[in-house]
């Protein structure tokens, strides 16, 4: 960048304030989580891990964490399988109903999670499936699959088809072409999509709050319930743990795909 393109002092001050604003709540959480006190105060003289320990001794939080982990991992995995298959259909073929199918697959991005939540609640109530982790996971698949589909479609459209043709002329069957050429070539899209799906499912609150039952409460729902009842530093400790998990996934995403590409370059 040339000198002319540098930001001036006012711009930098503005930028500092914005970054401060964005990071402030996260930083405060991470600090308060280490407080030795019983109230939400910043640790001033010493730090303590007692609230982290409390989280792991709290059976509800542990159970919810495991629920979330299970739901997010399964939902992300199934979403990837569905999205790769659907992505191939949408990218490779011209068929009637293609546009409608595309709209159907991306529709959860346009429907507020609140609406999806009450809609699924109605369905599950009619099916008698409200307490089921399987149906909860199915709901999550629907919410996260569009993210994967977008990345898979981007990867497929950027793929050099002649590599697949080359494999065919070298004697590979379509299944082998898919497994040995197509999948490895769109692997960044698949991995990025899985991680993005995992994070989104792991964080999802608004839809889940309608369709979880006491046995299937996920971590964000548990945290929401906890936060509306009592506020003690344990909440900060759980939040800090979630920030840590998210940050780890984020760094991984950044390595694999470039986070800015995943979040910004949506097509």
């Amino acid at each position: 960048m040339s000198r002319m393109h540098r930001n001036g002092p006012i711009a930098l001050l503005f930028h500092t304030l914005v970054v401060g604003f964005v990071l402030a709540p996260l930083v405060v959480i991470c600090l308060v989580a280490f407080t030795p006190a019983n109230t939400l105060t910043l640790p001033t003289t010493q730090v303590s891990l007692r609230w982290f320990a409390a989280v792991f001794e709290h059976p509800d939080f542990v159970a919810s964490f495991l629920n979330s982990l299970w739901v997010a991992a399964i939902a992300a995995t199934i979403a990837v399988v569905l999205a790769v298959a659907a992505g191939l259909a949408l990218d490779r073929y011209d068929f009637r109903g293609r546009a409608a199918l595309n709209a159907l697959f991306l529709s959860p991005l346009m429907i507020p999670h609140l609406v999806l939540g009450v809609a699924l609640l109605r369905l599950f109530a009619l099916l008698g499936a409200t307490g089921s982790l399987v149906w909860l996971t199915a709901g999550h698949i629907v919410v996260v699959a569009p993210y994967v589909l977008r990345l898979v479609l981007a990867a497929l459209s950027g793929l050099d088809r002649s590599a697949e043709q080359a494999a065919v002329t070298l004697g590979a069957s379509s299944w082998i072409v898919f497994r040995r050429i197509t999948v490895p070539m769109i692997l960044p899209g698949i991995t990025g999509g899985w991680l993005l799906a995992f994070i989104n499912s792991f964080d999802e609150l608004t839809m889940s709050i309608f369709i979880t039952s006491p046995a299937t409460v996920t971590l964000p729902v548990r945290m929401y319930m906890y936060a509306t009842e009592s506020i003690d530093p344990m909440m900060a400790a759980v939040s800090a743990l979630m920030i840590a998990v998210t940050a780890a996934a984020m760094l991984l995403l950044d390595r694999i795909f470039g986070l800015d590409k995943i979040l910004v370059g949506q097509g």
Partner: protein
Amino acid sequence: MGFLTLDGLTKRYGEAAAVSDVSLGVAKGEFISLLGPSGCGKTTTLQMIAGLVEPSAGRITLDGRDITHEKPDRRGLGIVFQSYALFPHMTVAQNVSFGLEMRKVPRAERDTRVKQALALVQLAALADRYPRQLSGGQRQRVAVARALVIDPPVLLLDEPLSNLDAKLREEMQFELRGIQRRVGTTTIMVTHDQSEALSMSDRVVVMEQGRIMQVDAPYRLYESPATPFISTFVGKMNRLPGVWRQGGIEAGGRLLPCDGAGLAEGAAAVLAIRPEKIGLTAPGGGVIDGCIKARFFLGSAWFFTVETSAGLVGVSLPNAGAEPACEGEAVGLAWSSASAKAGRPEGVLSA
């Protein structure tokens, strides 16, 4: 009947025909070029041979076997794509080995054959690199090795050199031809570069708008282009319009000597002559006089544009080591009547 024959091969996309009625016999071990401007249907023809595009009509036979509707993965032809289409997630050796794996060649034999193929294209040292770590020319050679390692009956090359820079392209022309000679594989190469086609092939197939216009050895193609289009597409050609008189064409107030079998006295005609068949003399010493408008130095040759009363004439002279006539100088143009041919203005330019 050749080793590989195309019989009335046609490909239509909707109404438009990308390839119409292409018939061709290719002898075993022959190197054939499909030459033509962009969009004339070369790639489509090649892909029909490869089985990647389904022909609308026509037949393809290989060694007497009809392969028109055989799946591409069963034809066993070697193909080098314009983009090379290397597998980016595999090393050079893995790329080359892929076709052998598909053929279930045992491990040990596979390794030897991969080594041989890489040695053939002089890439033995780079076997463990990934495609992105290679230069354009090296990638190109990996693609050739990958296509040749399976011992294909026919090697298909789609503009194999077009992604290389000029210098490398020239080197690879000779190298590719050398490899083909050594291995003896029947080869069909698609190109839009006439010099590439002329220098590498046993025979050149010129295509225009999906049709074959001429099939000939490079030298004959150059000397006897079948159509005005070919005469200007393959090499340079001066075309001077005039009127046929006994022994030559009258143009610009001069009688320009040339061959003109079958033309009627007084008929409109065009004189065609290649720039390198014209010599420069002192004014009045040739068949027509002119003035040098522009002069270009091409290294091995000089190229002049000479303004004459019959029109602009391009002249090419070998570089003899001394500086020739300059721009603005008056000169005479000389040629033997055997090296210039007269033809009808539109239609076929005979010989």
